[in-house]
C-alpha cells in the first residue's frame, strides 16, 4: 500500500516534469533545468556522503571539471553533445581517481580537510591557467552542435534543452539508483555503519570507497557537463568551495538517508535561492543559517521528517 502511494506520487511528479515546457514560462523552464542538474549533482554527492559515509568538501571539483571539459570539447573539437558529455564524465572520473587515491585511505576528519584542500587546488589551477581556462572570465562563446544518435534537435532552445536534460538526468538517476540498490550499494552502506566490521568480513574497504568516490565524481562531471551549455559559460565559480557547499546543503535539506532526498533538497534549494536573491544579496548567509538549523534540529532532512511524521500518523 505504502509503496503504491509513493510510486503513484513519483509517476505524477515525472509526468509533471515532462509537461513543464508546455505549461510554464521560460523563467520556470530555466528553474526546473537547474533543479534537475543540481539534483543529479547532489545525488552523486550523496553516494559518497549518505551511502558511504565520507563527507567530501571538494565535490565541486568534479562538477567544475565536467563543465570545463564540455566547454573545451565544444570549442576545440565540436563533437556531438552526447559524446562531449561522456568526455565530461571521463575527465571528472579521472580527477576523482587521483584525488580519491589520496583521500579515501584517511579517517573522516582528514578526508574532509583533504578534499577541501584538493578542491581549492583545482580551483586555483582553473583560475590561473589562463591559456587553457581563460582565468576568472571562464570559457564562453561555445555553440551547441548536434545531439548525436542521429537525432535532429535545436539544443539552443531552452524547452528542447530542458527535455534533453530531463532524459539524461532520468537515465543517470536510474543507473545511480541501481548502483545504490545493488549488493555493491549495500556494502557501501555497511562501510558507513562499520568499516572495521566490513574489513573483517574480508572486503577491501579502501577499494570500495575509491570506486564509490570515482562513480560519484563521474556523475558530478555529467551534471557539470549539463550545466555549462545551460549557463553558456564554464567559470571558476563552478569549482569554488562554496559550490561544494551546495550539494552538501541539498543532501542535508532533502535527507541523506533517501535516494530521492538530494533531488527534493535541490528543488527546495533552487526555489529558495530564486526567492531570496530577489530581495537580498546575502544568499550565502541564509544558506549557512539553514544548514546550521537542519544539522541541529532536522538531521533526517525534509523527506525523512515528513516520512517519519507520516508513519506516526498512520499508526
Amino acid at each position: 500500500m505504502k509503496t503504491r502511494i509513493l510510486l503513484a506520487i513519483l509517476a505524477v511528479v515525472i509526468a509533471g516534469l515532462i509537461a513543464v515546457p508546455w505549461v510554464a514560462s521560460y523563467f520556470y523552464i530555466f528553474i526546473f533545468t537547474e533543479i534537475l542538474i543540481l539534483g543529479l549533482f547532489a545525488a552523486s554527492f550523496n553516494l559518497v556522503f549518505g551511502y558511504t559515509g565520507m563527507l567530501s568538501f571538494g565535490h565541486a571539483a568534479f562538477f567544475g571539471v565536467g563543465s570545463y571539459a564540455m566547454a573545451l570539447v565544444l570549442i576545440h573539437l565540436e563533437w556531438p553533445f552526447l559524446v562531449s558529455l561522456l568526455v565530461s564524465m571521463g575527465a571528472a572520473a579521472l580527477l576523482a581517481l587521483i584525488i580519491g587515491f589520496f583521500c579515501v585511505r584517511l579517517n573522516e576528519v582528514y578526508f574532509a580537510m583533504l578534499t577541501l584542500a584538493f578542491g581549492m587546488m583545482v580551483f586555483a589551477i582553473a583560475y590561473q591557467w589562463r591559456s587553457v581556462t581563460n582565468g576568472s572570465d571562464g570559457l564562453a562563446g561555445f555553440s551547441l552542435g548536434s545531439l548525436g544518435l542521429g537525432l535532429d534537435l535545436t539544443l539552443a532552445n531552452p524547452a528542447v534543452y530542458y527535455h534533453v536534460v530531463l532524459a539524461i538526468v532520468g537515465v543517470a538517476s536510474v543507473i545511480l539508483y541501481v548502483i545504490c540498490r545493488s549488493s555493491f550499494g549495500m556494502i557501501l552502506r555497511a562501510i558507513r555503519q562499520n568499516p572495521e566490521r566490513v574489513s573483517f568480513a574480508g572486503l577491501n574497504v579502501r577499494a570500495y570507497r575509491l570506486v564509490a568516490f570515482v562513480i560519484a565524481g563521474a556523475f558530478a562531471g555529467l551534471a557539470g557537463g549539463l550545466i555549462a551549455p545551460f549557463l553558456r559559460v564554464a567559470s571558476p565559480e563552478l569549482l569554488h568551495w562554496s559550490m561544494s557547499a551546495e550539494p552538501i546543503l541539498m543532501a542535508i535539506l532533502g535527507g541523506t538517508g533517501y535516494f530521492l532526498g538530494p533531488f527534493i533538497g535541490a528543488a527546495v534549494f533552487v526555489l529558495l535561492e530564486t526567492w531570496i536573491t530577489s530581495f537580498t544579496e546575502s544568499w550565502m548567509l541564509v544558506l549557512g543559517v539553514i544548514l546550521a538549523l537542519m544539522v541541529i534540529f532536522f538531521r533526517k532532512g525534509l523527506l525523512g521528517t515528513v516520512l517519519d511524521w507520516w508513519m506516526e500518523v498512520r499508526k
Partner: protein
Amino acid sequence: MSGIGSALLNSLDIGLLLFIIAVGLNIVFGVLNIINFAHGALYMLGAYLAFTLINIVGMPFWAALLLAPLGVAILAVLIDRFLLRYIYSRDVADSLLLTFALLLIINESVRMIWGSGIQVVQPPPLLAGSMSIFGSFVPTYSLFVIAMGLLLLAGLWYLFNRTRIGRIMRAAALDRDMAEALCINTRLVVTGVFAFGAWLAAVGGVVAAPMRALDPGMGDKIIIESFIVVVIGGLGSFPGALLGALILGLIHALVAVISLR
C-alpha cells in the same frame, strides 16, 4: 647572501603567524575532537574588528590587539553555548557540517558589514619602517610578528606544561569521562578551550592585519594553509603544528624568492 637572509626571516614571520592560527585549530581538535572549519573565518573576524577599532574608532594598535581577540572569544562562547552544544555527542560529520555552516555565516556577514573591497591597516608608528639586520633591511613589523609568535609559543608551552589549567585541558583531551570523575567541570573546559582557540585565531588576524590586505577571502586562504600545517605536523600535536608552520613558511619564502628571479 643578504637575499637568503631576508628570505629566511620572511619565512619565519609567515611560519610563526601560521603557527598561531594552526595551534588554535589543533588545541580545539585535541580537546573537543572537532575540526573547526570556521577557524579561518574567526581569524578574519579578528582582523576586521581590528580594522574597525583602529581606522574607524581611532584606537591605537595595541588596544585593538587586546580588544579584538577578546570580542571574538566572547562570540565563540556564544557559538559554543547556543550551537555546538547540540552536536558534541553526535557523529564527527555533524560537527564538520555545523562549523562549515558557521563559516558561511561569518564570511557572508563580514562581506555585508565591511564590503567586498580591500581594506588596509597601518602598522603602529613604533613598528613602521625597517631595520638593518646582518646587512639586509627587514621591516620592523616582521620582527614584531616573530617576537609575538615566539612569545605565544613560550606562553602556550608554559600554560600546558606548568599550570593547573593546562593540566586540566590535557586531562580533558586525554579522557573526558575520567576527567569528569575527578570533579573537573568538562562542560566549562570545552567552552573555555573553544573560546581560547578562537582567541588565538583572532590574535593571528590582528597581527596579520598590517602585513596583509584585508578582504573577505582571507579566511579561506588561511584555513587551507592551517589544514596543510596540521596535516604535515599531525592533528592535535603541539610541536607538530610548529614544525608544519615553519615548513610551510619556508616554502612560501622559497616560492617568493624563485618567482622574483
